[in-house]
Structure formats: C-alpha cells, structure tokens
C-alpha cells in the first residue's frame, strides 16, 4: 500500500482532537501531520523555517485546511500554494465552521478541491471527516507527480 499522509491545518486544539479522532476511526492515513497556523503550513510544505529539516515525503496526499487561522488565513495559504508550481496541484480540502457564502466562493476561486462545513453535532462532524478521509485517500486518484 502506498504511503498516504494528511496535513491538517487547525488552530483549535479541540477541533484538532475531534478531527484526528474521526480520521483514526476510519484508519485511512499512514500518518497525519498537524500544523496550527498558516505560516506553519507553508513552512511545512516548502520545508522552510522550523520545518526545514522535517522528514517524510515532500507533499502530503491531501491537505485539510481551516480558514480562520492565526498569522496567515487559510484562504491566503491556499492562494500561495496555487501560485507555486510545486503545490499548484496539491489536493486541498477546506474544513471550516464558517457557513459564510463569501468564504465558500473565495475558497473555490482560490483553487480549493473541496469545501466541507464542520457540523456542530459531533456525530455528523465525525461522519463528515471520516467520509472525506476515505474519499481523498482511498477513492481519489492524486495528480501525477511533477
């Protein structure tokens, strides 16, 4: 089985725990890396800053990105990724509490592959996360490596 990993960008520790719990329940990923703000996310992806020496593959199989992030917002991160040839094709799923239409529109405009709203009800939330994990790691064929 091919090595699959997820980069989760989530500043809320409670949501992070619940998300990881949901992913783990379906057991789709070999590894889940978590960063807690936008800048960290970029550093992780481009191996810069504190992640200059990180190990593991260059890019995650899928990146799960919150919008309301400290330092750089999720939308800004997405914009940078799409502007860089290395990360232009990286599958990005927006997972956010916002049901604001403008956020949804901007996400797709900036090249998000998917937009998932975090339900307040944990049952629904866990189900949503589990489904997207299965879909993006098991069902979806990633873009060919550059």
């Amino acid at each position, binding site marked *: 089985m091919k090595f699959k990993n997820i980069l989760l960008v989530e500043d*809320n520790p409670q*949501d992070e725990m619940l998300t990881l*719990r949901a992913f783990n329940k379906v057991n789709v990923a070999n590894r889940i890396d978590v960063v807690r703000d936008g800048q960290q996310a970029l550093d992780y992806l481009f191996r810069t800053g504190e992640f200059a020496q990180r190990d593991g593959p260059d890019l995650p199989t899928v990146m799960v990105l919150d919008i309301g992030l400290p330092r750089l917002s999720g939308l800004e991160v997405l914009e940078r990724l799409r502007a860089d040839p290395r990360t232009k094709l990286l599958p990005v799923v927006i997972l956010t*509490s916002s*049901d604001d239409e403008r956020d949804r529109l901007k996400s797709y405009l900036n090249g998000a592959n998917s937009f998932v709203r975090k339900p*307040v009800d944990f049952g629904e939330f*866990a189900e949503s996360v589990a489904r997207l994990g299965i879909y993006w790691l098991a069902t979806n064929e990633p873009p060919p490596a550059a």
Partner: protein
Amino acid sequence: MNNPLPSHPPSARVTPAQVTLFLSILIAAIVLAALGFDLLDKRQRVLDNARQEAQNIAGTQARLIRDHLGHVDGVLAQLAVRWHARQLLHEDAEQSLRDLLRNHRNLLPDAIELLLADDKGRVVAAANTLLGDLPLETYCPALASQRQNGVRQGLVAYHPELAAQCPASPGLIYLKPLKRSDYTLWLFLLPDGFRDNLDAELPRFSASARFRIVGGSGNLLLAGGAPPGQASDGVATVSATVTVPGRDVSVGVDYAPEHILAQLWRPQAGFTFALALGLLLSWSLIAFFILRTVRQYQDYLAASEQHFRTLADSGSALIWTAGGDKLCNYFNQPWLRFTGRSLAQELGNGWAEGVHPDDLARCLDIYVGHFDKRQAFSMDYRLRHADGGYRWIRDDGVPRHDRDGLFIGYIGFCYDITAQQEAAQALQAAQSASLEAQRQGRLAALNQMEDANAARRLAEAATAEQQLLNQRITNLLEDMRQSEARYRHLFEHNPAPMLVYERGSLRLLAVNEAFCRHYGYSHEEALDLRLTDLYPERDRQRIADLITRLAGYANVGEWQHLKKDGSEITIEARSHDIEYQGCRARMAVITDITDRKAVERAVRESEERFRNLAENSADWIWALDLNGHHTYSNPNIGALLGFAVDEFLALAPASLVHPDDLAKFGATFEHARASRTGWRNVVIRWRHKDGGYRLLESSAAPVMDDQGELQGFQGVDRDITERVQLEQERARLASILEATSDIVSMADPQGNIIYFNGPGRTLLGIESNSTMPDVIPKVHPQWAADLVLGEGVPTAIRTGSWSGETAVLGAGGEEIPVSQVILSHKDTQGNLLFLSTIMRDIRESRAAAQALRESEERLRLALTAAQQGLYDLDLTTGDAKVSPEYATMLGYDPATFKETNAAWRERLHPDDQAAVYKAYEDYVADRIPEYRVEFRQRTRDGGWKWVLSMGRIQDWSADGRPLRMLGTHTDIDALKAAEAALRDLNVSLEARVAQRTVELTAANQELESFAYAISHDLRAPLRAMSGFSVALQEDYGDTLTGDAKRYLDQIDLASRKMSDLVDGLLTLSRSTRGELRHDPVDLSVLARRRLDRLAHGEPLRHVTIEVETDLHALGDVRMLEVVIDNLVDNAWKYTGRTAAPCIRVHAGTVNGLRGFCVSDNGAGFDMAHAARLFQPFQRLHRQEEFPGTGIGLATVQRIVHRHGGEIVAQGKPDEGACFCFTLSASGLEKPS
C-alpha cells in the same frame, strides 16, 4: 467669240469657195461648241438654284407637318388621359366622350376632326361638326375595310382634287385611333384645312411646283400644287425630298422653274438651235451673217438694256421692273436713292419691307390681283424714305411684253405724292378746327372760325388740286424730255395750257387745246402772238429779260397774264428748252392760280381774324381731332400749362392728363364722339410743364364738315386750380376747428357771438337746449365774464392776444374751469374785424395733478414702510437725487446727504465691486433682463450694510447710451443675517450627517465582524462540548453510570440548542445585510422542497400537504427561502401534536393586496399575544411543548419588510395559524 473674220480672198492653190467652206465649217464648229458649253453651264446653274429652292420648300413643309402632328399628339394625349380618368369614375363612356369633345373643342386646330365611333363604325360623337348618327364611312369610305383589317395605326391619304392620283385611298387622313371599351376615337386631319394651311405658306407653290407627302409605307398621303404636266412643260423638273424627323412621313417637291427658264433661256435657246440647224444643213456662208446677227442682237440687247437703265436712272421717277414670277428684278437709282437701300435688298420681294405696314396688304392685293390679269394698275402707298420717314408714293404699274408679244413682267413708275397727301390731311385738320360757344363773346369767334374753316377748306382743296396737277406736269415734262413722240401726245391732250415759243423772237410756235380754251384765242390767233403779248404792258420787258437768262428747266414763278378778253389772271409757268421744227425753242406749261390766290387771301384774312380773337382770349382755346390729338391751341396754353404751342401740339393728351383722370377724359371724349355732342364743365387734371397738376374745367362743341360728318371738337378750358384749392383749404380749416377738443368761438367787435365749434356747443349743452348764447357774458359765470370783458377783450384788442384762466357755464349751469386765449383779428388798416377765443377744459388736468400728488404720497409711505430708498441717477453727470430713506438707511441725515455716483462707489465694499459693475454692464448691454444686485455699503459709523439695489435705465440717448437710471435701495441686513445663520446651520448639519454616516458604517462593519465571529468562534466550543461528550460516552460509556450518562446527554442537548440559536442569529443578521436582489422566484417550489425534506426527516408523520402551484414572486431568492423555510418549519412543528395535521401553502390577501400564505391546523396562538410573535426571542409556547429559538419569525418579518411587503398572522389556540405576507406594495407579483 473672238473669231477672226476673213477679210481677204484665200491663196492660189485652193479655190476661194473651198477655203470659204472649210473656214465656215471650222467656225461653225467652234461657235457651236462655245454656245453648247455656255448653254450647259447656265442650264446647270439654273437647275442647281431650282433644286435648292425645291429643297427649301420641302424643308418648310416638313417643319409645318412636324409641328402640326406634334400638336395633334398633344391633344390626343390630353384627351386620352381625361377620357381615361372619366372612365375610371365609371361614367358612361359614350356620354363622357361626348362631353369631352364638346368641352375640349378649343384644343383642336381647325384642321382636326375628332370622331367617336362604335364597333359597328357608327359615328356617335364629333368634335368639330355635329353630323349626328352617321356611319364612319361617310367620312372615309376606305376606313371600313381598314378597320376590319385590324388597322390600329396608320395613314390613309385623301385629297378631293387629287383623287385620281391616289385612288386606292380616298377619304380622310386619320391618325392614332384610340380604342376604349366598345368605342374607338378617330382623330382626323381635315385635308381641306390642311391644304389651305400649306397653300398659305407658299403662295407661288401652286403655280410652279407640285408637292406630295408620303407615309413610311410609301402611301401617298397628300399632294397638291400645279396639275401634273403643266409644271414640267418639257423644260426641267427638279425634285427634292425631306423626311420629317421622328415621323413616318416625308415631303417631296417637284419644282419646275419655268419662269426662270422662259425668261432667261427661251429666246436665245430657240435662236441658237435654229442657227445650229441651219449651219448643219447648209454648210454655207450664211454662218457669218448669222453669227454677226447673233452678235448684233446681243450687242443691241446690251445697248438697249444700258439705254433703258440710263434713261430710268436719269429721271426723277422711281422705276421698277418685275419678272413673270411677280418678283422684282430691277430698281432704278432714284428708287434706291429714295429708299436708301441696295439693289440686292430690294430685289424679289425685298421692296415690300419698305412699304408702310398699314398699306402692305392692300398693295399686295392690288399688285397680285392685277398681275394675274395682266392689267395695269395704280396705287398709292407709303414707302419708307432713306430719312426714316414715310412718303406717299403713287405707283403706276403696266405689263411688259417682248417683241413677240410674250408677257415678260411689269414695269412700274412711282412718284412722291406726299405733298398732295399732306394737303389732303391738312384739309381735314383745318376742317376740324372750330370753337365751342361757351359764352356769348366767344360765339362771334366761333362764327368767324366757321367762315375761316370753310374758306380754308376751299383753299386747301384748290391747293391740293393744284399741287397734284403741278406734280403731274412736272412728271410729264420729265417724261417728255425723253420722248418727242410722247411730248407731242402729252402736249396736245394736256389739261393744262401749254405753249412752245421760239427763243429768239418769242413767237409762239405751238399751243395746245387747253391754252386756246383758257385764253380765248383760236389756234391760228395764238400762233400770231408773241409770248410777251400774254403779259400786261408793265411786265413785258421784265419777262423778256428773264427769258433770255433761262436755260434748261425753269419755274419762272407767278406772273399776271392777259386773256384775249383783256382780263388778268395769275399764273405759274414752268418751261424748258426743246428743239422744235429745227428751232431753239422753249415749251412752257401754264397753271392758272387766280382762284387759288383769291381764296388764299380770303383764308388769310379770315384766319387772321379768328386767331386774333382766339389768341387774345383769356381762356385756353383748342381743337381736337377725332383721334384725340390737339390740332390747335392758342398761346394761353403757356400760361396754363407752361408749354409753347408747338411743344404742346407735339404731345399726346394722354401723356399730360393725370393718370387718375385718364379714364374720365377718355370716357368723355368717346361719349362726345359717339353721340356727336360736346361736353360741359368737365374737370380734368393736366400736368404742367413744371410737373405739378392744374385743374382745368373744359367745355367743347363738335365740329362737322360740309357733309355733316364729325371732324373733331373745339373747346375752351379754364384753370380752376386755385378756386378748388381755396375751397379745400377752407373746408380743411373748418374741419380742424370741428375736430379739436378745445372750445373755439368767434364774436364780432360788439361782443355778439358769431361762431361756436362743435365741442364748444357740446360742452355748453347748446345742442340740447338750443339756446345759443348770443353775447359773451352769457357764456361765462359772472366773475369770469367780468374778467373776460374787463381785462381779456381790451388786452386782446390792444396787444393782439390775451390768455388766462376763466370758466364757462356748462350744460347744467355748473362752472367749468378753462384756460382761455382771446385773439383779435384786424384788417390791414388796423380795424377790428372780429374776436376769437380758444378755451380748454382744465377739469381733468386739475384732477390729474391732484391724483399725481396723492399717488406720490402713497409711494413715499410705501417706501418708508418697506425700508426702501429711491434714487434717480443722472448717468451723464453722476449726480443722483435720493429719497430720505436712502440716506437714513446709511446713517446719514437726509437734510444734508448728497449722493453722487462717485460717492456710492466709494462706499461700495471692495469684495462686491466686480459683481456689481458686471451686473450693471450686462444690464446696459441687454444681456440680463434686470439690474438687481446685492452689495455692502459703508455706513456713516464705518460699519457695513447689506443693500439690495434694483434699477432701470429710464432714458437712452439716440446713439444708445444710457442717460438716466431710476431704482430703489432696500435694507437687507436682517435677511443677510438670517441667510448666514441658515447657511451655518446647513454646514454643521451636513458635518453631523457625515459623522453619523461614518459611525453607522463602522457599526455595520462591526456587526458583520461580530456575526462572522459568532459563526466561527461560537460554534467550535459547541462542537467541542458535543464532540467530547459523545467521545466520553463512546470511549467510557461502559464505566459511566446513572446520572453520568444523563448529564452527558444534557451537555449534548444544550450544545445543540446553542447551535440553533447561533444559526438563527446569523440568519437574522444576514437578512438586513447585503444587496437585495430581484429574481423571479417560484414560492410553490420552495415550499414543496422544504416540506418534502421535513417529511423525509420524519417519515412516520402523516401530514396533509396542499401547495398551490405557480406562486410566483419577485425577490431575493436566498432570503425568500429563509422565509418559506421558517414558516413551513413552524407549521410542521406546531402540527406535531395535531390529530389530522394539515399544512397549506396558498395565495391570499394582505390589506387588500394579493399575498402568499402558509396556514396550518396546529397549535395556533392567542391573538392577544400576536404583537409579540415577530419580536426576537419572544415565544408563545413553552420550550418543552414546542422547542424554538424565537428568532425565526423576527427574521421572516425583517425579510418581508426589506422587500417592501407586510406580514400578518391569524391564529386561535388549538385551531391553527395562518401567516400571510406580501413582497411589495403591489402585492403578488408575476415574473415577466
């Protein structure tokens, strides 16, 4: 023909006969050849000329036909169009054409006939003739067959005289038949008229040429002219053909110039042929003689011609000759000198140009008429002289014949008979002079004039006769010089006494019959006399001396002669030298002028008497002929109209009579002429030489001649200009006096009133009570009468005039104030003639003055009340007059304040100057309609005062400069202060509004951020609460007991409720935010979808659902979705405990407008609490009954209101609720 003639016998070896024969043959051959060439050459020239002439004739005819046919086309086109138009109106075709033909008769030339024929060939209508119901064949027998053959267009020829030449086409010419329904319109050229037309164009056509008109198909259409065979005559015929452009017709002419050939050729040709024949037959010496004869004949002809010309040119008679063709071929020098024209101009018919137009037709009639009959004629006509005037000519023409008796033309002799004609006219004129007997004194003059006229008529007649006779005699003498034989004849038969005497002895050699008769001698006795015997003793030596000096022609003038009986007569004698019986002699013609002299004397005396009378008359005496021309005027015309008599007589009366009087003048004259009466006292304006007009009063009487024929009028005119002018002047003055509004009156020196004008009579009421005041005191009240009589009248008499204010008594006895002027009028000696007075009613002017004062007072009060000052600025000096308010406004004392333009400028605030000056300039230049400016003026205490100044230019100079300006100053300080305050207020208000707007914007942004934060930050904890409580149950559920599990459930429940609240608040906040869109929305679809989802979520519930279809609305689809979701969710929720739940979505009414309703039969509500329904967080049910946030309906109402609509709720506890809403003031909307 310069052949050498043999003058010597031939030489030895050949016989003289042989030589002669040879030479004669040689010579004959040469002669023949020369003659032949000559003949051929001349013949060719004549033929060429003839051909050219034929060509001309044909061309003329072609043009004639083309024009003619062009006109016919035009007529046809007009008729066709009109007929067609009538047919369009469904009028009876036949009747309409009948009318058409009748009404348009004038369109048709005489040579055209229009016929309307029906299908059977019956003529039903005709334009030129009313032949009635005749068959077409009556007009044209050949037409029937043509018609039956379907001929629609073509030409058929006919001419009655030429029927034999075109037997195939007798009948009429017709053109372009027009077919309309059952009728055919035939247009015919009537050949007779046509023929006349052609013949009129060329009178000599018929004699010398034949013509033919041929159609395109070769048909002979028309022919005319000389009968065939006559014109050709075996000599020559030339032909010419001309095609008419654009027409299928050509004109041909055969031309036989016989007259030319006959005249120029026949004698010589015949002679030469005979000669040639003789030569050929005889081969003899006869040729010499013939040749010589030919030359002699030619020489003789030439000499004869020369002789004739010389004779003709040397006389005074004007001589012409014409050939057999009537064309003139010779005019002698006297003729040419007379007319001043060249021979070339006169030849042919050129001479006719010189004939007076009035005489030409008559001349030609006589000329042609006699010519054709070969008769001599004599006619008088006026011929234009080289000096441009016309002279009367007597023209005697006689036929000429050659030696063989063949007619070769005419010769004419003309004499100037102008003197004779003028005498005849003078006679007429003299007869027409007589005088109107307007007054007794003038009657005598008239009688005198009658006598004078009668005498003069006799004298003129005698003179004319005498002159005629003299002329004849002169002519005869002239002729006689040329022919002795003619002398003799004329001598013997001359009506005037004639004699011939020997120059030396003065013995009479011959006398004529008239002499014997007149003088009383027998022929024999006369021949015994000497010329001097005829003279009285006293004259004999004188006449003898005179005769020795006579040479050639002479007129010796007037002498006394003695008859045999010793009586003396007065004669005139003309004589000239002749040879008589071998002696040098003179022939004399004697004219007895005794009677004439006597009459002339009488006339002179009579006329002298008349003229003395007429010319010493004070009036203008004149005579008019029947043409309205003055034939006499006495010198008074100079005094009346400024013209000399001769000058006046040369002018036509029409050029002197005033244009407005011309008709009257003409009518008067015509009436008098027609009725053979005169006229009396007719006033006519005549133009004076100075250009002005004089009024002349004219009277006239007719003048008759011996036979009682009216000859003209005589009359007398007098100048009445001054009389009329005086009358007009008087009338004008009187009318002025009557028209004035002043009282005008006159009184005699005694104070008796003699005149009162109309306005005066009216004012004093004289007309109403008819008691005219007879003396001055009665006109005035007592005090005024005293003033007038005591001061006014004496002063006027002394100094000429007096003026003052008095009064008169009005109609009702009231006192009327007047201003009065009294004038005295005196004659040249200073005697008082009369007094006059002019009085003017001054009541109105007094009242007006009073009104003006009051008006000014009111204005002053008004200005004071309005805080306004007045100014009156003289723009030329800059000085201004101002009202007191003007000064006080600026803090000055009105008593001492002096305003000038400069001072005003000085006080003007510097910031206002530019605007004020510009406004003034714009106003003066008429760029703005009024001068109205606001400015600050410095007050006396140094402060500033706002002033509104309005003004108007009152006077302008002639070159457009303003002179005077009137206007007001208004104190507007308070107004300005109020304006400033208002402006400040507005400024602060705007600032506050701007501040508020900024605050509101900030608040809005804050609210938005808040809502956003809620959605993110409030949800995460809730999710955590919910998530971890679930995780706890999942992971440690086994170890939890009792209440622990229940508590976890409560945490989960609370987090869910919190989540609903957050969602509701977000929705509520979004409903008032963002742009409102207007989409077409189907509410039925929205409701159905929501209900389906609810039903899907609770499959166990059975709810009756009725959703009306096509509930279309216009609005923001996301917000309307919220509305429908909330209402439907509520209905679903509140029917949760109902036995047979039913939810309906349908159309309804809200406040009379159509709206949308969601109703149910659920828990309902108490209307007492209805007001709280739409308030946020207000609930009418307990949470455990029906859970909810209390935000939904508040959101729904906000959305409805934002759309401009209304929402109402109806309900009853346990019976259900109904929510109805509209989305705009107009209610239910349908998408377009």
